[in-house]
């Protein structure tokens, strides 16, 4: 009974986050009428915690996300705060949330180059240093940018969050994981002074970037490792097929919800051979089941 109650709350919470977003895209008549290329997007996600601590728009547990629009581009991004900081008394969600919020703000102010998401990520990272409130921690991040002028998708990825682009039932591009070693992704970090030497810190410039032209109806999935570690690619692909060319934000939302919900269910399934378990096995670690993690899904379709 208890778990049912919690689940109900989780779903409603996920919906609150997602619907809020879909409203902003669906009800804005200017964006609907636009003939320029743009993204229709929906967001869903769950915190790993079964109890809900706080309800913050743009955050699921230690994960954070943003979607933003400017004249020249549509930008989506996710970040996954590294949980190891909790033992130092640092909230891992804070870094990722601020990183994404800053990206969002820079996009809204137009302070970015519409073909360089790595630069956006880097500027956002350096900006964090200048907050009065010291923001410490580290995070992986993935930013996807649709340039409206040439209908090209520019991506920047650091660590094991990632994106996947599907066209006519086939995966045409998928981000590669950047890892130092198993289960330790590349990460942007702001360690407390004095710990600098002991902390893994990758320069924002080390983000892997990519660009490729997109077509009308392409489906873009941007998600944190909570999704890619728990859902095999064929399941994701099956879901993504359902929203090929979808222009309706609320139908897109349903697919996003189902992906997030499946990832969440499987992450607590102790017998399931998840992609994470497969990779662990390849690294000589014998484990089974999903990897309980925060889950964030941003689903978008290209409308040209």
């Amino acid at each position, binding site marked *: 009974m208890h778990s049912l109650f919690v689940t109900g709350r989780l779903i409603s919470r996920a919906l609150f986050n997602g619907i809020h977003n879909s409203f902003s895209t669906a009800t804005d008549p200017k964006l609907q009428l636009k003939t320029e290329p743009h993204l229709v997007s929906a967001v869903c996600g769950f915190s790993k915690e079964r109890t809900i601590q706080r309800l*913050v*728009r743009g955050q699921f547990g230690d994960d954070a996300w943003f979607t933003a629009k400017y004249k020249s581009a549509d930008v989506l991004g996710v970040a996954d705060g590294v949980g190891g900081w909790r033992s130092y008394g640092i909230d891992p969600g804070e870094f990722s949330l601020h990183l994404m919020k*800053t990206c969002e*703000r*820079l996009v*809204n*102010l137009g*302070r970015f180059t519409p073909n360089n998401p790595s630069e956006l990520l880097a500027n956002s990272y350096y*900006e964090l*240093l*200048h*907050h*009065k*409130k*010291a923001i*410490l921690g580290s995070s992986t991040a993935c930013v996807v940018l649709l340039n409206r002028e040439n209908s090209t998708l520019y991506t920047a990825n650091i660590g094991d969050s990632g994106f996947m682009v599907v066209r006519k039932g086939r995966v045409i591009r998928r981000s590669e994981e950047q890892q130092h070693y198993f289960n330790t992704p590349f990460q942007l970090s702001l360690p*407390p*002074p*004095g710990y*600098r030497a002991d902390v893994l810190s990758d320069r924002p410039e080390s983000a892997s970037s990519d660009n490729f032209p997109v077509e009308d109806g392409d489906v873009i999935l941007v998600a944190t490792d909570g999704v890619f570690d728990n859902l095999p690619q064929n399941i994701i692909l099956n879901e993504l097929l359902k929203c090929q060319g979808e222009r309706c934000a609320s139908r897109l939302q349903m697919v996003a919800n189902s992906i997030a919900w499946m990832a969440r269910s499987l992450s607590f399934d102790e017998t399931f051979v998840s992609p994470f378990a497969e990779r662990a096995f390849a690294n000589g670690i014998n484990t089974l089941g999903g990897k309980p993690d925060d889950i964030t899904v941003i689903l978008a379709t290209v409308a040209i």
Partner: protein
Amino acid sequence: MANNTFIPVENVFKMRYLEQFVHKVVHCSSRYSNQRNYSYSPINLVGKYVKYPSYGDSPEAYFLRSYGKWWKDSIAAQKEYRPQDFDLLGAEDFIVVEFDCIVVPREIFIYEIYHPGAVIRIWGRLRKDKKWYLLWEGFPQKCAARSRKFSPPLRKYNCLINLLRIEFNQNHLDYHTAIDAVLLSGYEPETEITYELIKNGLTQVRTEKPIGPTVNDFELSDCDTDKPKCSRDVFSMLPDEIILNIFQYLDLKSLSRCAQVNSRWNKLSQDQTLYQNINLKIYWYLVDVNTLEYLLNKIKNIKKLDLSWCNEYQCDFSTRLHYDYHNKLQSVIETASKTLTHLSMNDNYFVDYDILNEISKCKELVDLRLHHTFNWIRWPKDVLTKLVSLDLSMTNIIDQDLIQILIANPNLEHLVLDLCEQIIDMDFVVETVINFNKKLKAWSSWKTMSITSEGVRKFGLCNNLEELDLGWCLMNHVPDGLAEIAQGCRKLRRLILSEWRGISDQLLMPLILSCKELTQIDLIGIKNITSELCEKALYLLPKLRLLDLSFCDGIRQEEVEIWRQQYPHITIQRSCVYLYQNLN
């Protein structure tokens, strides 16, 4: 009567009503951010509000650098050059913002999201025109700690504007003020003809009040009516010397009125002894080529000259006027160069290499303020030698030139280098100061990034140091020079160490134990300090008046509340972010 004759131009012509947010920030005299950063910077004024109606210390708004009396009380702060020429409303800083569309202004909303109440004046102007219209002025307000959509009643002008200049007086505030956005609403002319008619004032409607601050005018007119009418002119019996002596106490505006009384007064009012100290800052909107021309003949004996803010000819409408003004400015300084001891040209666009060249020939200069003059890079060959105070904050000065100046001025006591981002090796600057400027009392290099622990350590040799502002300088190091400062700088009164994130109790303790003169300590954003240190500081420092513990996560709010009660004479700052309070 005048009130009745005003006919809003929108009732006469067909005009489009529109509301718009800021398009671009043109100029600002104060900022809390580095040039390329967005947190707390003026750029945040652009576009729609993002935080309003939440209230709090959020990096997504524009912050003014100073608040309260703390900055004015600094020994490095500029003293008034001509105290009778003061601004009744006390404008300290200003910002100029540009809007997309040209409108006849009818309403302005200023979204203040932290410590509101600093706005005292709003001016409007057309970018391609030079005339500023005073849309509103009022005394600074004490407001509740709540976000505020400030909408002052505007004076009714049928003028076209797309620039707004907002002036602030933050002296009464308890902490930094923050503005999220500015909304300008009004009527846009639909046709070219309407535009031209309004622009040239041909709409046959009279403005309600004359342009320019009227507070002074009101006072004057009150005085006039109260004065008993004398049939004899007592004044004319006084000898010239006495009249001159009286004239000395007049502000420039009254003096120019006196000049219109009769020929004798006119002659007397032009006497050079009256123009020893000149402050044109508060008349910035009136200063033009003619003003400078008028001064040119009277400033042979000038001592102090304040030309801050006087750059209204920096507009796009005429390069010739710009050129004339620049040349006139140059000759004013040239004429004054023999005697000038104090010169202030804060926020003046016109300070470029040529002007600087003239300034560097003013050999008697003791006090030089060039805050936020950014149109120069290199300092001329000549250097001054008698400087005591030097303010180069928000300029592009480079290491080499600064060091040259420092070496030539052994008497230097106050040095302000806030936000001088072109200085690459601050440690070497500090070393130069130690060797050549033994009298240094105040050092400020707030938000400059190039100092290291080594440089900090050297301040220990500056035995006369009273004020040390190193806020935001050492963000990610563990500094180890504080013990030396504690040893060497016993006279330290003001210490700003904002965002020295590597600092801990042990590093700070020596300072608190040995610098008994400390009155201001700023420890913003230092996570590691504990309440033990703060209790020691509050208890052991008898002269402490300001302790800023904002964003010190190691200290609980309840403790701060207790200290506030225990030490009511000490202002303990504790700023907070209510970042995610989403009230939409």
